[in-house]
């Protein structure tokens, strides 16, 4: 079987790609997508670790998978609010460029 660290390393790579996406994309919606990547990376490592902890019993192992379920819900709620804000702003601005939101500074 593929060792856990492979999966976790993959998750780390995806996580960082997501993070870099947050830094480089200028459209708010693209940033949301990048954040989703990061969350999914976390989920991947949780699932991988859940398998790893199988030796410690079902309660420990399955809690990793259950946590993924919770995080999924969190992602959904975040998306709802995020898109809500985006839509609200878009109404007045007609742009999703976050660089335009840089009036408050210093």
């Amino acid at each position, binding site marked *: 079987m593929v060792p856990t660290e492979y999966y976790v390393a993959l998750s780390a790579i995806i996580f960082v790609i997501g*993070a870099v996406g*947050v*830094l*480089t994309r*200028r459209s708010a919606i693209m940033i949301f997508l990048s954040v989703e990547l990061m969350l999914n990376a976390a989920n991947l490592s949780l699932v991988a670790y859940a398998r790893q902890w199988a030796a410690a019993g079902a309660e420990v192992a399955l809690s990793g998978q259950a946590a993924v379920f919770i995080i999924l819900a969190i992602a959904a709620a975040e998306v709802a609010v995020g898109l809500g804000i985006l839509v609200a702003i878009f109404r007045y601005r007609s742009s999703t460029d*976050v*660089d335009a*939101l*840089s*009036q*408050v*500074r*210093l």
Partner: protein
Amino acid sequence: MSALVSVAALAPFVALLGAVINGAFGRQLKEPLPGIIGSVAVGIGFALSLLAFLALLFSDVTSVSVPLWSYLEAGGLELELGFVIDHLSVLMMLIITGVGLLIHIYSVGYMHGDPGFSRYFMGLNLFVAAMLLLVMGDSFVLIFLGWEGVGVCSYLLIGFWYRERLNADAARKAFIVNRIGDVGFLLAMFLTFKTFGTLDIAAVNEAAGELVFGSAVLGVIGLLYLLAACGKSAQLPLQVWLPDAMAGPTPVSALIHAATMVTAGVYLIARAAPLFAQTPAASEIVAWVGALTAIVAAVSALAQTDIKKVLAYSTVSQLGYMFVAVGVGAYWAGIFHLFTHAFFKALLFLNAGSVIHALGGEQDMNKMGGLGKKMKITGRTSLIATLAIAGVPFLAGFFSKDAILASSLNSELIGSGVGLYLVLLFTAVLTAFYMFRWYYRVFAGAPRLDKKVAAKVHESPTVMTRPLVILAGFSVFAGYLGLPEFAFPNWIAHWLEPALETSVSFRHPSAATEWLLIFVSIAAVALGLGLGYYVYHLKGGALAKRYGSTAPARLARQGLGFDALYRAVFVRPGEGTASGLAVLDKDLVDRGITGSFTTVGLLAQFTGRLQTGFVRSYALLMLAGLVLLVIAVVLFGGLS
């Protein structure tokens, strides 16, 4: 008996009371009243002093301590204020209150009509009080209290006519120069305390006797006290204030700047006699300071044209004699000369005052002359005083001056006193000369007065002349209290013995030598007077005119240029330093410290730039921050 003596402790407080009354209510009182109050206050003081003197004279008690109140019983000082009334201080009290009383009375006439009449008597009374504290104090601190007190009074009275800038300047100068001396006094006290752990004079004197003869620390203490004495007694190098101090009313000059305050330095050294007797080095310096001052001042006196300035320099010169006396260990002789000098110098000043009063304020001797005819009492008493100070035999000054001359040769405290003796002898010639000049230019010869003034010249009122007569009497007879010891009874030396007991011993040359010395000094006086007679009477002042405007004469007139020297060396650089520091303080220190705050502002500008407003740069900072943290963990370790 002690109780009788103790009552004299009230004297300074009575004088103080007079000052307070005059200070608080004087302006509401009609004219002679403040003067009467002042005179009565001093008169009571004199009566008390006399009582104490008599009590001491007719008893075996030599010293009475009068404790007052706790002053500084802290920090290991354990200092109680207290008076000591012994043979020395009671003599000083008599001089202060006696001469003071006469001058108070004289002043009632002299200050007639002055708007500051009551202020004047307040100042005088305050002075008497402070001066009494000075001489009665049983600790250096109390002496210092009086010491500064008389300095303040002197300041007030020199600047009495403060509306003239020169007078105020003179007062300021006196105060500042005195302060320099005061620093010496303070440092002396500090070192005394460090050495002996006490500031009680008796205790210090006793402890000093137990120290090694000639120990360095004693020498330093002595020199510091000398600095103090130089300030107060106008000795080199701090002599410069006294001539200027003549700006004050003339009776003030008589009392403060001739008879009493300026002798405080001599008194101080005499008080600390056992200490000085243990340190020949310091003593010798004291003597030489005195000798040099004596001659420098005498030379300066030669060329003065102001009637009071001559006397001022003469005072400085005579104080020099006293310093020589206390320097060589002849403490009684110093006090003796102080005693006689008080009378004839006060008299001289009062005479000068009488003249100034008569001439409506004129002080220039070039505009006087021949006044002896119109002012008989003033003229005659002046003559007596002049002869007394010149050292004409059988008058007071002769005996006291001679005692000093003799002591300077015979002292075993210092090395050879020949140098001192010669300087003093030469000064005696000069003294006789300039005093003759003074008398002649004022009272004899042809009048050189303005016509308007001449018409008004008159003898002073009785209230002023009576004191003159009394003082003249003392100027004649006071010297008989201290006849040359080798052949005659010397009352004053014995009287002072209990208070001035030291280890200093004197050589006792043969009677013939003593007589020889006496004749030498008589010859010196004669030489001086003769020279004066030659220059001013026979030559009619032509010589004086010829040389009067030469460079040396001008130099002498300016007090040998000490003022200019000090101005160039101390005052100007001092002022420069002061204003330079002020600029430095504002520009450098202030900005230096405040500047560090502005660097904070610059730092802030930098941090402000981090906040770009771009959400993505914020995210980058977060990620970068995390990465740095992770790297730190990887580099520096995980679980320990």
